[in-house]
């Protein structure tokens, strides 16, 4: 993760901001989307689902595996 990407995530609202990350691991590139839960210099945690407002599925990603970051504007997210 570049310092620009880290700054971008640090400026986002934890627990609310939806983010799309590109992650490279063992030669494969993955795309994932979730709610930003925690940002440190070493890792980023995103949540995929919750039950009664408690996170039930989340993932912590090492910063060095993150190759792309996109903050999704609220206007791009539709509610189902």
């Amino acid at each position, binding site marked *: 993760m570049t310092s620009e990407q880290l700054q971008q995530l640090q400026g986002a609202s934890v627990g609310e901001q*939806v983010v*799309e990350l*590109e992650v490279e691991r063992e030669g*494969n*590139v*993955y*795309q*994932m*989307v*979730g*709610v930003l839960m925690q940002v440190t210099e070493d890792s980023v945690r995103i*949540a*995929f*689902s*919750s*039950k*009664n407002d408690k996170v039930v*599925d989340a*993932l912590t990603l090492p910063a060095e595996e993150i190759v792309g970051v996109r903050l*999704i504007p609220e206007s*791009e*997210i*539709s*509610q*189902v």
Partner: protein
Amino acid sequence: MTTNIRKVQFVDAAYRTDSETNKGLDLKPHEACGYVTEHGDSILVTFIQRMRPTSLYARIVALILGPMVVKGLVIPKNALHTQNDTPVELPEMVEGDIVSVTWADVVYIANNRFRQAHTMRTRGVVQEVRNNDIVLRNPTTKRIWPFPRREHAHNATQMVLPLCLIKSIKVAS
């Protein structure tokens, strides 16, 4: 088929075991966020996907067998909060009746191809019928589709089924 990033609110069945006597029997709201695609009666919420396969072969396989999902949920459309306002017509039943309920389950998938929501069958004793759900005692549940048939929630002592997920109910004579 459309692909979008969406927040999805839905309901799911819940159950309680002997060791969870303090657990409430109210259905809790669920929320998920991911890439949403529609597939017939279900939606697929993909949390993690591999980047689009580059080879033609991989694309054809995905087209025929369905997309490979690294991590996601298959949710029956009836479970969505926006679409669950037409519950099944309930037969006459009272507390203590034995019923057989066929219902659609929410399915977690990991490193697998998309499949339609699972169909389950639960046999149990009616404890309470409420506005949006039914509570069963001593439930036994089997997945009846897709094969193979498999027991589900085998240690449950009570189960709450949202009416919107129910496909049919039969009262044992």
